């Protein structure tokens, strides 16, 4: 589960970086900026695997909001641009040139839904805000050991 959360956070970071990199025409014409997606995902997985800290859910949600704001800032409220640019970035990053925009957007939607499902379903060890119910059949009426 931790790997999935790290992958999703890495993809979010990759999207943000590739959109920022794409603002430079010089860079955009020389480098496959979409490669920042798998690169950021791999770096995040490696860094997260060696860290003992929990994967920060709030930071991931903040990145999602930032990504949406960045897309709106750069391309404005143009639904066509918002359908093409993330799909093209994803296609170039993962070399999926055989797929059309509609298929790529379906894959992206599935990735984002799954990523959010993983984000909002934190691991057992981090569920501090409620106590687990005892399983059925568990005896709670133990005799008091004190004399």
């Amino acid at each position, binding site marked *: 589960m931790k790997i999935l959360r790290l992958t999703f956070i890495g993809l979010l970071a990759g999207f943000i970086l590739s959109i920022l990199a794409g603002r430079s025409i*010089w860079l955009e*014409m020389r480098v496959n900026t979409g490669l920042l997606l798998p690169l950021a995902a791999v770096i995040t997985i490696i860094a997260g695997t060696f860290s003992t800290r929990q994967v920060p859910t709030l930071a991931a949600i903040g990145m999602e909001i930032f990504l949406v704001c960045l897309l709106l800032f750069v391309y404005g409220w143009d639904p066509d641009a918002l359908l*093409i640019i993330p799909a093209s970035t994803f296609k170039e990053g993962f070399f999926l040139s055989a797929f059309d925009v509609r298929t790529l957007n379906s894959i992206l939607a599935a990735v984002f839904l799954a990523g959010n499902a993983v984000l909002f379903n934190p691991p057992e060890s981090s569920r501090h805000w409620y106590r687990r119910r005892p399983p059925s059949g568990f005896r709670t009426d133990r005799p008091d050991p004190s004399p």
Partner: protein
Amino acid sequence: MNKFLYMIAILLLLPVQSVFSEISPTPDHPITIDKDAKSVSFLAEVNGKYFYQPTRHFAVHPDGSNGDKSVLRGLVPVDDFYNALIAIGAVAGENMTLKNKEVTYVEGSAFTVTVTWDGAGKSYGIDEVVVESNKKPITMKFGGNQATAKDKKTGCLLCLDSCPVGIVSNAQYTYGAIETRNEVTMKGNKDILPADKTKVIVTLKLI
């Protein structure tokens, strides 16, 4: 009698059909040459990304290193494109080098470039399908550059500023006008061009 007339009609239509198949490029034969009209047509595919991102590439073969950086993915190999232009009598300028590219305007035979597709209803000029921020007419000239193109393997067919690698490029600007000096920006015209991945036919006619 009727059968005889049908046979004559079919025999008469066969050469007409073959003439049409020569005119229109297909995925199996992505480039066609019309020596009488002094024109070359090739099959390409729209890249919707460059309706929204500036680029300096108009058409690039998808196997080249710049294959995903252009308004159109030109589905014809660079060598075939170069040889087709030579076959219609175009003369390469061969004046662009990697050293002089920023101070030299491409020379060579000039072309009118048009684009059409199924349902377009007409052929659109390159000035209509490319949004050029300075509104200067795009002047495509046959730079040549076959050896450099083979060496660099960029896949560049038509560039939007004078280029030492692209076979044909725009003589209005020197190299770097778009990428580094910000003299102009160019994008595909989303109000005219069809959707991403739509097949189009690009025609270059010798002026």
